């Protein structure tokens, strides 16, 4: 039986844009990070701590992880949409992925907000 056409979901553009915006931020951040450590490597704990204590660095990291997690969500969802056919299974894997990513977000928040 041919599936009945169900029309457009009027969505998809937001995710597509988000994937690209987060990619660009991560690219810029990694470039900065690599250059920063190539020019002046940090190999003692105290210096690492001092660098990380800066609010700007923490915001940079926060945005990086937010981007990485959102980028992961859109990417993994796309993988599931392509290959996972049974609706219930797709629902389960998407739910598990979203939950794991959310837990990771809370973990990162805990690290970045810690009064270290």
């Amino acid at each position, binding site marked *: *039986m041919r599936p009945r056409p169900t029309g457009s979901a009027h969505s998809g553009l937001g995710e597509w844009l988000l994937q690209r915006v987060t*990619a660009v931020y991560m*690219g810029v951040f990694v470039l900065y990070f690599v250059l920063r450590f190539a020019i002046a490597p940090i190999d003692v704990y105290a210096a690492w701590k001092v660098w990380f204590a800066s609010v700007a660095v923490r915001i940079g990291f926060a945005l990086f992880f937010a981007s990485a997690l959102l980028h992961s969500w859109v990417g993994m969802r796309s993988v599931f949409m392509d290959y996972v056919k049974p609706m219930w299974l797709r629902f389960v894997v998407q739910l598990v992925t979203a939950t794991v990513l959310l837990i990771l977000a809370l973990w990162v928040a805990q690290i970045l907000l810690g009064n270290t």
Partner: protein
Amino acid sequence: MEHISKRPVYLNLFKIRLPIGGVVSILHRVTGVFLVLLLPPAIYLLQQSLQSAATFESTVRILGSLPGRALLLIVTWMFVQHLYSGIRHLLLDVDIGVERTTARRSAWLTLVVSVVTLLLIGLWMT
């Protein structure tokens, strides 16, 4: 219509030639999935490096050990391959290099540049 679903479908992925753009695209997807799986260990290492001087030292030691470095190189390759093919996709999105020959060349380029990047990092690490 019932009998149609019983018809064979030819879809032997080992016999269908995947163009270089397709190869880079599936690499982008595979490396992407691996990078997602690497997020928890990466967050864990960040946490360890910040916790105390002792955990910082052990993190540096783990990453500096031979298996640590080997693993780091593999992860780095996955990351740069994903990064370069991602940049290629972004350029294609804004109508740069969408012609067949240019797209083929840029696909090859991502593979070559990732390996070169990896070699440079390998040299720098030794």
